[in-house]
């Protein structure tokens, strides 16, 4: 209802809370990277100006991101709906190009060198395009999301980049695409899928953690208990009995055969090892069919639970109040590998302890809730779906990243949004958030 004045397009209707949260998080990120890189015997100011260190690079990235953010805020929000499908196609193309132009960094061939020593990870950027494309698809007037066909199509949109990511050995990034399930759920995806999906995930993790026979026994016990509880209904409806026994059979079957099959035949040896080592177990690589094929390369390696162990030590040694800024012994001693990227949370946990972690996570949670609240106030489906996509992507990143540093999730290479060192990641989240801000600023317009 408010008329748009060309003079204050940028600031009008902007949600400054989120901008502040964004700025705070990026600053915390740079400080965390500074903590990791800091050496007491070197003049940090000089090396900062030298631009050779990661924290000064990150600051440059942040500056670049600010410019990009400005541009996004200057654009017309209609542009995003118009170009959504095109951008998605471009993103997929970029990912396919990676197979040709790709450069190997840390064992995954998912980077495209763009000159100047910088590399772009298309799988990272593709999240934005997928979010836009999904929003576009769901907001189409002819899409009826209660129909299975639309649901399947939406699933294909979300999972296509994920499949490409897996092919690039980026399991972590591929997992992120499951975040779109949350957005789809909000748009009417049956809750059963979500419940079933998460139950299955819990079952898989339980299979890893609990001893197989114990798990089988407890599953049987639960089934028996259910049968006992529902004994009166069972007499009336025979279908229920079949259902319960069916579920029980499925669970035990999964636990007994499917999960081992996945670990031995689908996943690579190093992935299985990582997942097992996360729960403190050794994975016998000789069982792995894939590693058998290339047995000539290397014999079975020891489980590399070093990362998790050191990460847990760093966070655990922080205690209630932490060791203080720049006083983390584990951080200074470089005990945690990849601490400036995937394990950045450990430096925070060590320096500021439990209280610091809670404060930090609260900022994140506040951001997430704010985005959800923002999503709910959108009038257009496009904006809402997009907002939910952003919220769930950020949420998924935080949950997986923090969980893996504290030993609740296998180690998959996922950065902590806005905190971890890395231009691609920072840029992606900046674009994600600022497109959302732009859309939100124009929420009075009905976008189709």
């Amino acid at each position, binding site marked *: 209802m408010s008329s748009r004045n060309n003079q204050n397009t940028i600031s009008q209707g902007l949600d400054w809370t989120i901008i502040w949260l964004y700025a705070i998080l990026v600053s915390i990120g740079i400080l965390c990277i500074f903590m990791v890189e800091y*050496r*007491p*015997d070197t003049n940090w100011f000089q090396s900062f100006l030298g631009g050779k260190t990661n924290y000064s690079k990150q600051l440059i990235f942040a500056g670049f991101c600010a410019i990009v953010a400005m541009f996004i805020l200057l654009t017309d929000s209609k542009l995003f709906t118009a170009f959504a499908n095109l951008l998605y196609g471009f993103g997929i193309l970029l990912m396919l190009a990676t197979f040709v132009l790709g450069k190997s960094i840390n064992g995954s061939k998912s980077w495209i060198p763009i000159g100047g020593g910088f590399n772009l990870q298309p799988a990272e950027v593709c999240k934005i395009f997928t979010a836009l494309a999904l929003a576009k698809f769901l907001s189409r007037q002819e899409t009826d999301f209660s129909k299975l066909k639309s649901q399947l199509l939406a699933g294909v949109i979300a999972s296509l980049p994920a499949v490409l990511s897996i092919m690039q050995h980026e399991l972590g990034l591929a997992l992120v695409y499951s975040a779109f399930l*949350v957005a789809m*759920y*909000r*748009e*009417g995806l049956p809750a059963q899928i979500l419940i079933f999906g998460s139950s299955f995930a819990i079952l898989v993790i339980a299979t890893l953690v609990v001893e197989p026979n114990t798990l089988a026994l407890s599953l049987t016990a639960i089934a028996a208990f259910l049968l006992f509880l529902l004994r009166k209904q069972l007499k009336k409806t025979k279908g229920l009995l079949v259902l319960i026994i069916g579920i029980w059979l499925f669970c035990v079957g999964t636990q007994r055969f499917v999960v081992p099959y996945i670990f031995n035949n689908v996943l690579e040896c190093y992935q299985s090892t990582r997942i097992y080592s996360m729960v403190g177990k050794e994975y016998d690589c000789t069982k792995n069919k894939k590693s058998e094929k290339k047995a000539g390369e290397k014999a079975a390696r020891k489980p590399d639970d070093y990362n998790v162990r*050191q990460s*847990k*030590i*760093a*966070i*655990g*040694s*922080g*205690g*209630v109040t932490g060791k203080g800024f720049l*006083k983390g*012994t*584990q951080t*200074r*001693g*470089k*005990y945690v590998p990849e601490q400036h990227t995937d394990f950045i949370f450990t430096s925070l*946990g*060590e320096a500021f*302890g*439990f209280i610091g*972690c*809670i404060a930090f*996570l609260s900022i*994140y*949670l506040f951001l*997430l*809730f704010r985005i*959800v609240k923002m*999503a*709910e106030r959108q009038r257009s*489906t496009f904006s*809402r779906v997009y907002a*939910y996509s952003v*919220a*769930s992507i950020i*949420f998924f990143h935080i*949950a997986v990243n*923090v*969980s893996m540093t*504290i*030993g*609740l999730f296998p180690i998959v290479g996922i950065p902590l949004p806005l905190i971890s060192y890395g231009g691609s990641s920072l840029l992606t989240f900046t674009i994600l958030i600022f497109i959302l801000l732009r859309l939100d600023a124009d929420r009075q317009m009905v976008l189709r």
Partner: protein
Amino acid sequence: MPVFNQSRGRVVQIIFASVFFVIVCQLINLQLFSAKYKQAAESNALFRKIIYPDRGIIFDRKQRAILENINSYDLVVVPAETKGVDTFSLCTLLNIDTIEYKRRMRDIIIKTGNVRTGVFEALLTPEMYAHLNENIYKFPGFDLSLRTVRSYPYSVAAHVLGYTAEVDTSFLRKHKDEGYQMGDYAGYTGLERYYEKVLMGQRGVKNYIRDNKSRIQGDYEKGMYDTAAVAGKNIHLSLDVELQKMGEQLMANKVGSIVAIDPKTGGILCMVSAPTYDPNYLTGNQRKRHIAEMILDPRKPFNNRGLGTTYSPGSTFKTVVGIVGLTEGVITERTTVTCPGYFTGCGTGKPKCLDKGTFSFKEAVAHSDNTYFSTVYKRTLDQSKYGGADSALNVFNQYAYSFGLGHRLGIDLPSEKKGNIPVSADYRKIFGPKWYSCNVISNAIGQGEVNTTLVQLANVMAIIANKGWYYTPHFVDSIEGGDENKMLEPFTVKHYTDQRIPDSIFDAVQDGMQAVVEYGTAVASRIPGIVMCGKTGTVENYAKINGRVEKQLDHSFFGGFAPRDNPRIAIAVICENAGQGAWNAAPIASLMVEKYLRDSITGQERKEKLEEFKNKNLIPRLMRMQMAKMDSLKQIRINQLIQQQKMNKELNDSSDQEENSETDPKVIPSAPIKKQVPKKQITNKAAVLVNEDKKYKKYNR
């Protein structure tokens, strides 16, 4: 259409919140309830470096430092940084070949890793240090690291001072609660061991942070938890290093010991144990080899014969027997006994005496008459007032104990032996309950079951000099900065002999002992102008050779003190298997006494005597045979090695071998123990042995 799903927004928020809740739960578990992570972090990152204080310095009675610390350098290396090292010139400087260089490098990498500092060559010689210091810039990754080592500037008193060594597991087990850890050095023998607590000082701790490759990253908490090292305390000895040095020279090529005590204080003036060794021999980088060499030596150079070996005191014990006899009243000074050539009291014809005739007490001491003291001893044990030999011997033993015999004196060195004063229970076992004085008559002349250490004997002399009292013999006079552990307290207690012994009896014994030197057995050892009292001893001894007990040449003993009025030195000397006491022990003692009282030897005749005894070789025949046997075994090994080398090289020349096999055990005298170590780094095993062989030969001719 979106409206009916509005409630799902709330569900999404709940999902977010619940996942965060799970994360917070795990954080609570990790950060609030798991102490093990804190410990793990500390053991990860905290590096506690022990700061070793300098050990205390040991001074002699004239404030000369005889055990101090000197700076020494190790060549250390960080293997990862050695790119571009001029290996050849480094090897030339160190006298090693490149194979050895590579081997050491590999060992260091295995031991300490690639990025940490390892010791490439320990304890550089001064020349090597000078060369390396000039050229160290040529060798990146190499550095010279300072450390202090113990040094003995006078190269004497090895047995007294002892040595330090890196602690081993058995040491750590024994001294569990004293805070030692692997890599520490501790005193192992001698004063270094006994006064370890005083000398070691207090170790400091410096806390560093280290990184994942164990490289030091800086101080931990700005040194808040660091403690400073406190240097060890210096100690001052009563030992006279000049006297000790002359004693060691006199005892060169002999087996035995000299102990001299200041009777006024109980302070030990010198304690020589021969054969000895240069204590610096055990500080360098060849230390292990030298220790092995000495352990195998049949002369047992590590044994401190001053207190670690017990001997029959022989005739020197007659002084004690005489004092007891006079005190008990079984004889007086005027009592005379006639010797027809042997002791008639027991009808066995033993013991024999050297001079026939009739002796008063004084003359009996002067001429060491066996019959006289056998008579005294027999009369003492046969006294009817004690109602039997058992209780009479007990009375005798009470006297002996009060002279510091039969138990440890409590001297401030480890591993002191206590000697033996036989008790009646011993004899009941041997001779049955009806044993009597004739069974044990050889004790009268110090030949039976009586055993003393040389310190005990010197202490007896000090008691006679003092006329009835002594302080426990000891080395340390004072500790700088106070005796916190009260280690010197036992040495301030004055001990008295049996109070019944009047001064007149000591006078009588001193008369006799003065006569020994003036015209008696030790007349040849008279020092012009000094009134010395003494008593010679000639001790029969036996050794088991190939399962047969054979009589060996007598041990030569002498005990005495000087001057008679206001005595300043009490001395005891033993020279193993060197014949009569007057031949060797007495002259050596007289030279020592003169040296101490006059600071030098005066008179041409005395000076010649000094040189004569310095050069005398009195290594016992048995030891010579054992050494020769070892040498010839070594010879055989050498020959085999040479033979092998020859076979390998297919050389025909055999002259070398012939020369090597001409060893005759009987003509080979001993090589003196104090020999210089070949400084040159030896690379070939065969070469080592040949070198050794040549060295021995040089000494042999």
